[in-house]
């Protein structure tokens, strides 16, 4: 099992100029680690659609790597995205699913088919160019260069240690420094010069 902080540390060191689209649990963890927030765009407003957004971004910016940090519950809400991504074959898209087996931000209820579904096998069957699975951070750290050197669309399952939140969303403390999604979009469009 991989801890969120450890995964984010490895990704942060290896991302280079990649654009990163995190969602749900990964969003909070990534925002505390990323050294290039102007190239990040956390997506949480449309449930399950971070990978679809990332596909559009990857097609619009074909010379830039795009990494989506998806959740397993999020991916299950939009499983057809895997066929759409495989069909368009974006060479620069890296679809990472953080498979913790639960809906972590709603109290830890298990996802459908927890322990049964193999997301990398689904991606393989859908037609991604390459798939990987990691359950050990040292293993991933040793092969991360190989992952990013592989032509996309690449799919990676990370078996994660759940970090469950039980407080209702409305009562959770908000980081006053956190950007709104609108602000993050403006920052990214300035960065990409697409305004």
């Amino acid at each position, binding site marked *: 099992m991989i801890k969120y902080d450890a995964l984010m540390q490895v990704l942060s060191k290896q991302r280079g100029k990649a654009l990163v689209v995190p969602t749900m649990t990964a969003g909070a963890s990534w925002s505390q680690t990323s050294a290039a927030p102007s190239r990040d*765009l956390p*997506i*949480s*407003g*449309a*449930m399950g*659609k*971070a990978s*679809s*957004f*990332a*596909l*559009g*971004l*990857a*097609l*619009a*910016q074909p010379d830039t790597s795009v990494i989506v940090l998806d959740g397993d519950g999020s991916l299950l809400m*939009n499983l*057809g*995205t895997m*066929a*759409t991504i495989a*069909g*368009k074959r974006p060479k620069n898209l890296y679809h990472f699913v953080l498979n913790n087996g639960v809906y972590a931000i709603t109290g830890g209820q298990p996802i459908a088919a927890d322990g049964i579904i193999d997301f990398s096998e689904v991606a393989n069957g859908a037609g991604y160019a390459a798939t990987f699975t990691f359950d050990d951070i040292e293993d991933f750290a040793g092969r991360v260069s190989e992952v990013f050197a592989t032509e996309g669309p690449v799919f990676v399952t990370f078996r994660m240690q759940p970090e469950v939140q039980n407080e209702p969303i409305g009562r959770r403390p908000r980081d006053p420094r956190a950007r709104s*999604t*609108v602000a993050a*979009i403006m920052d*990214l*469009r300035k960065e*990409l*010069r*697409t305004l």
Partner: protein
Amino acid sequence: MTTQQALLSPVTILRQFKKNGVTHVVYLPDSETNHLFLAMEEDPDIDVISVGREAETMAIAAGLLVGGKKPVCLVQNTGMMESGDSIRGLGMDCNLPIVMVIGYRGWTRWGITPDSAARLTEPTLNAWGVHYYLVEHDGDADRISLAFEEAARTSRPVAVLVGDEYHGFNRPNLDEERRRVQAQTGRG
């Protein structure tokens, strides 16, 4: 209005897309749009992205917009209803000018239809606060440009409802269809 004008040609829609600089059409097929799909597939300037479910279209379009492209979503009204969270969470809350061309399944000019998809289309858009333009025939084509202009001006999603109640876009042979209508009505 002549019978000829009553037709809404797929070519008219495609011209409007190109006039407005559309780079990508993100779509899910429906019974009204097959002929338009064939026209788009033949056009080298437009990239067609076929999805598995309509709600993907708005999210993909959002990514394309942020990345500097100009997409349009093409779905049926049933798919628009399925896409509510994407329209809300990405189009409206993120201030993105997503233009949605929506096949108005079940629409009739006299307003009586057994199809709940048609009865609920405009009330749903009104509830969401999404402005829309109705396009029935080629003479309405400029309304598509108005939709693109409004979306850009307001940074909000805008809909184009395609209410071609007789034919949709699904005409295997437009010329033959025109001749048939002329023979029936005696007008051209």
